């Protein structure tokens, strides 16, 4: 090397390859622990080609019933979202650092929202079915309670981003806390709030189709039954119906959210 004016600094230790190798090692351990073997998968893949061919001819003979069940799914999702909206509307201002009355209510509201989010809707659906019996109502409740956690957190985070000055200005007129929330808070985040709500409606339609598996509404249960009795044609038809409706809703809600921005 030519004469340099000083010794070049040592190349800093790049930890990336180390982390990456550790990660791969971890994954290998997991595969071992879960007793998954590549062989099993490969055999499975081979079978699977044949297996999926059984779904090639969807049987739509029971279509009216499937559509009714799908309507039930959407209805469940709508009411679930409403319940979530009500809870979130009431809780979010307490979970927002800038609008909450004191630290205690803030922490409490945040933990409640976290707790609601953590419980899987299916577990909640199981509990509500045990308490209310079968049918879509427990499903709507389960969805409502669980997504209240998400919606509440989204709303609270949006409210925290509202311009401090605007909030001060309303406070300075002698308005009460709830008036400040209603006039400086919600109007400032209306667009975002609607966007989040549409996202949750979308998500709830997806989840509602599955809650039927625990007896909380129709179409999931129908699919479980057809699969259990190896009725592939009907299963295929059900999947097509579910897929179409979910995709349609997805498209609609994305379009609506696009119109908001």
């Amino acid at each position: 090397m030519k004469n340099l004016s000083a010794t070049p600094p040592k190349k800093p230790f790049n930890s990336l390859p180390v982390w990456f190798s550790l990660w791969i090692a971890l994954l290998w351990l997991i595969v071992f622990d879960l007793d998954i073997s590549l062989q099993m998968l490969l055999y499975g893949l081979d079978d699977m080609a044949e297996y999926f061919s059984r779904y090639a001819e969807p049987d739509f003979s029971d279509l009216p019933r499937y559509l009714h069940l799908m309507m039930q799914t959407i209805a469940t999702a709508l009411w679930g979202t409403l319940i979530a909206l009500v809870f979130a509307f009431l809780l979010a201002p307490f979970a927002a650092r800038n609008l909450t009355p004191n630290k205690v209510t803030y922490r409490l509201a945040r933990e409640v929202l976290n707790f609601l989010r953590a419980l899987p809707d299916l577990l909640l659906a199981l509990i509500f079915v045990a308490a209310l019996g079968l049918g879509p109502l427990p499903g709507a409740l389960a969805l409502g309670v669980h997504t209240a956690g998400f919606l509440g957190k989204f709303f609270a985070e949006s409210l925290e981003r509202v311009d401090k000055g605007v909030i001060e200005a309303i406070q300075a007129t002698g308005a009460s806390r709830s008036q400040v929330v209603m006039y400086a808070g919600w109007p400032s985040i209306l667009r975002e709030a609607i966007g989040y709500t549409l996202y949750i409606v979308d998500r709830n339609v997806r989840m509602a189709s599955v809650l039927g598996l625990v007896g909380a509404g129709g179409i999931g249960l129908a699919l479980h039954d057809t699969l259990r009795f190896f009725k592939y044609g009907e299963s295929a038809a059900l999947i097509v119906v579910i897929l179409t409706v979910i995709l349609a809703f997805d498209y609609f809600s994305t379009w609506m959210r696009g119109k908001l921005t």
Partner: protein
Amino acid sequence: MKYLPLCWPTRNGLPPLALVISFAVVFGALAWAAPIAEINPLRLIASVPRLLSFIGNILVMPDAQYFPELFRKMLETLEMAMLATSIALAISLPLGFLAAKNTSPHPAVFHFMRTLLSFMRALPELVWALVFVSAVGLGPLPGVMALAFVTVGFMGKFFAESIEVVDAKPIEGVEAHGAGWLQVRTFAYLPQAMPDFIGSTLYILEHNLRAAAILGLVGAGGVGYDMVMAMRLFDYDRILSIALGIYLIVALLDRLSSHFRSRVI
């Protein structure tokens, strides 16, 4: 201007038209849905005592003998989520590039990939789990497959969107030096899209943990099966233990991911 004693702050004193229409639409939809979803406030109120007694039953001392098995099941759930997310990550990276308008080799490829990803995330994991169980049998394998499949749908989309909002200048810089197709993507697009993408991955991992917890319902591994059996057999202390176990792991992951997020992003 004539106003009734109480009015809204609009020219004519009535609520704004857009608001009225939105309310009417929403109200109409809910009214249509109510009988179908069997919304019945009376039934709800009548069920409160049963709900309360149920909750009262659950709040008992958990059976410590169950803990080792619960721990194993929770670990299995966590492992399923991590494995599925990692596999999905590996697959989504290249797919994301193909599904982003600015890095896709051809518009036809772009549209095809986007539709494919849309299809992959449309159905909930549980539906795919049902199908895969039917195909490869019970156990965590179909669960991991179902999770990975749906996750690719979401990750691919997130990743594609992160790539699409990348700043053009550094890209031009790298290209101007004669970098090849793959090199441009690795050294110009990837570093910019990374922070966003890491954020999405953490969020997806949290979600997959919850999803993995319920896949056991259909026999696809994880603690879901125990959950359903406990409900059916009225094994109340187990229900509490399982719920707490899930809550603890999700909360832990939540803390870890916010900590990691603040350090990396």
